[in-house]
């Protein structure tokens, strides 16, 4: 008995060997930067030279920083445009493509649409940002079209007016995010037993009823994953803001990641930037834990 346990333990030790690359990668890319960022958040540092310990000073400053709180509020709004709206549109589109378009026009048309909706995900975001910049510019395509069809009063200064900047950026983000949700949901749909739909159809259920009674409950695991990943993406959104508005006009589209970038690279308040990043990370981790708990509970119920 004892001998058998011994061999079992040595066998297990053999496996640990294979963990080394992963652990090293984790240390280098995740843990060490996180810890050093955490330590830096208690210092003042210009990026070169020696950091100076200042205790909680950065966090005290954070509490009274209007820019920081403004950016937090914008993050809440970006959760709508990065998570909620794309998930809803993605669900409806996936269901439409899967059991309506495909049935009516065949696999190829459905694949074409799927690829089309996914395209914004493949396009480098800087390229997409520049294109959207042209489209939304006051002398850009949107306004030219609106003026051309006699709707000149609707033409706006899309990214330059504080009222419209946030919705405009959100619109571009929805355009980017929908493809991701759609593809995940479509792969989930292929997992669902078609006989469920057939039975429902025989019972006289319409498209909408099948969506709410079968598709959404059956897709719950995919929806959880997509909501969690897009939620995290929303909390650290940076690139679309950076290329489209640089946080403007008058900080109307500022987000925490951009504020971190700004303080790290331009004001050289590296310690302060680190403290913003720490708060951001804490929020992300807390949200992720709550969400995973919730998901585990849901699965346990089933």
């Amino acid at each position, binding site marked *: 008995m004892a001998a058998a346990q011994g061999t079992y333990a040595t066998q297990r030790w053999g496996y640990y060997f294979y963990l080394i690359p992963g652990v090293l990668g984790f240390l280098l890319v995740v843990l060490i930067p996180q810890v050093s960022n955490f330590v830096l958040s208690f210092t003042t540092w210009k990026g070169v030279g020696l950091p100076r310990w200042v205790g909680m000073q950065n966090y005290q400053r954070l509490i009274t920083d209007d820019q920081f709180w403004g950016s937090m509020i914008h993050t809440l709004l970006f959760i709508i445009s990065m998570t909620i709206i794309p998930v809803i549109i993605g669900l409806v589109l996936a269901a439409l493509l899967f059991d309506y378009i495909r049935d009516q026009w065949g696999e190829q048309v459905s694949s074409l649409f799927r690829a089309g909706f996914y395209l914004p995900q493949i396009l480098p975001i800087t390229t997409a940002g520049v294109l959207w910049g042209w489209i939304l510019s006051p002398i850009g395509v949107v306004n030219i079209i609106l003026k051309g069809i006699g709707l000149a009063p609707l033409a706006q*200064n899309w*990214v330059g*007016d504080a009222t419209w900047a946030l919705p405009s950026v959100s619109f571009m983000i929805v355009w980017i995010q929908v493809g991701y949700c759609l593809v995940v949901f479509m792969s989930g749909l292929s997992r669902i037993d078609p006989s469920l739909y057939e039975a429902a159809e025989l019972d006289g259920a319409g498209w909408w009823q099948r969506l709410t009674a079968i598709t959404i409950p059956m897709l719950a695991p995919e929806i959880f994953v997509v909501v969690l990943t897009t939620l995290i993406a929303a909390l650290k959104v940076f690139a679309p803001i950076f290329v489209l508005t*640089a946080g403007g006009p*008058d900080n109307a589209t500022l987000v925490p990641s951009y504020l971190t970038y*700004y303080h790290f690279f*331009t004001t050289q*308040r590296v310690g302060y930037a680190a403290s913003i990043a720490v708060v951001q990370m804490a929020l992300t981790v807390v949200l992720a834990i709550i969400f995973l708990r919730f998901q585990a509970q849901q699965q346990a119920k089933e």
Partner: protein
Amino acid sequence: MLKLSRLALAASLSTMLLAGVAHAQSKTFNIWWFEDPTSSENIAWTKALDEFKTKHPDVTVNFQLKTFQQLQASGSMILNSDQAPDVLEYNKGNATAGLVASQGLLTNLDDYVTKEGWDKILTPGDLTLSKYDDKGIYGSGHVFGISVYGEYVSCFYNVDMFEKAGLKVPTTIDEWVADMEAFKKQGVTPLALGAIDTSGQHLLASLAYTKADDTWIQNYQGLKAPLDGAPYLYAAQTLSDWVSKGYINKDSTGMKDPDAALLFTSGKAPMYVSGTWNLGNFASTIKDFKWSQFVIPTTKYSVGSTGNLWVVPKGSKNADLAAEWISLTLSPKYQTELANDGGVAIAADPATITNPVGKNAASVFKQIADKNGLGFYPDWPVPGYYDVLNQKDTGLFQGTLTPQQFVDQIKKVYDDAQSNQ
């Protein structure tokens, strides 16, 4: 043509890289700059680099074209590593060159200044931004970098449109306003502006500097006292007035500099206030009309400065070669070349310049520099002030900030930095 030259550049870069591998044993000299491929600086320096290479057949010269953003974002970290080149172009000012100089990352060039005779070519004013003290504040201390060109903000104008409207080049702000009013009456928005980018704050500062005296500029740029907001208040009031009168389109808050420049180069807007870095672009793209530039009427100070610096990182193994390179770009031959490519030469003999654009630019720069009228850029005193001014002036232009609120908000950031030095 542009594509061809880029292709040639890429080809020469890759051969250089290959050469670097092949001759790893021989002496290598690494040099970086970040001027735009079409800019006059890049054109002139590329030619100078060819001469440099033929002069030193035993040295492998590795050149890399960086971008301003790359060095702005991570320059100090590169200089702090063993990846730093032997000589590179670096952004001038306290927050950039001053910071790395104060951290001991740059070679002190004091000896070279006399040895290479740079003090005979450049005036003391031209060297103001070359010197940084222990804290990294410009103006005194050791020489850590050399600028070989100048830059200034002026108003570019469409000569044909001015002539057709029967208007004269303004010599006072009132005349300038009268010109704008005349264009407005014809249904033309006179001033193109990209408020998201630099041209918003440069127009703002150009107006503020017309009310600035020596003390104000020295205090402002030296972070010596809390901000005296009066010049900025005048500028902000003037600009919000111009927006409401329609001299500036409110939509400019949604435009970047290239969009605004396009309004000027396509002949839609008769005026555009921006820096001399546009000269190369304008010279190559404007074909349909005559254009020129006038300095915004001011008693003494204009927005402008000597250009970015050649600096020699502390780890450079070839400081002598680096100094020789700097001397080459300062030589009459390449100063004239720079002006003939449309750049703002700092030490060219106007008689030798054949390009009218470069000739005019060199003489305007000399005019401003000779009366000590370089007021530098408004974002210099406070790290990150560039973004603050951009954010706040879009608020001013779109009308969500009153001139007084605008001044209060930029003063808050300035005074915060001033008291926490």
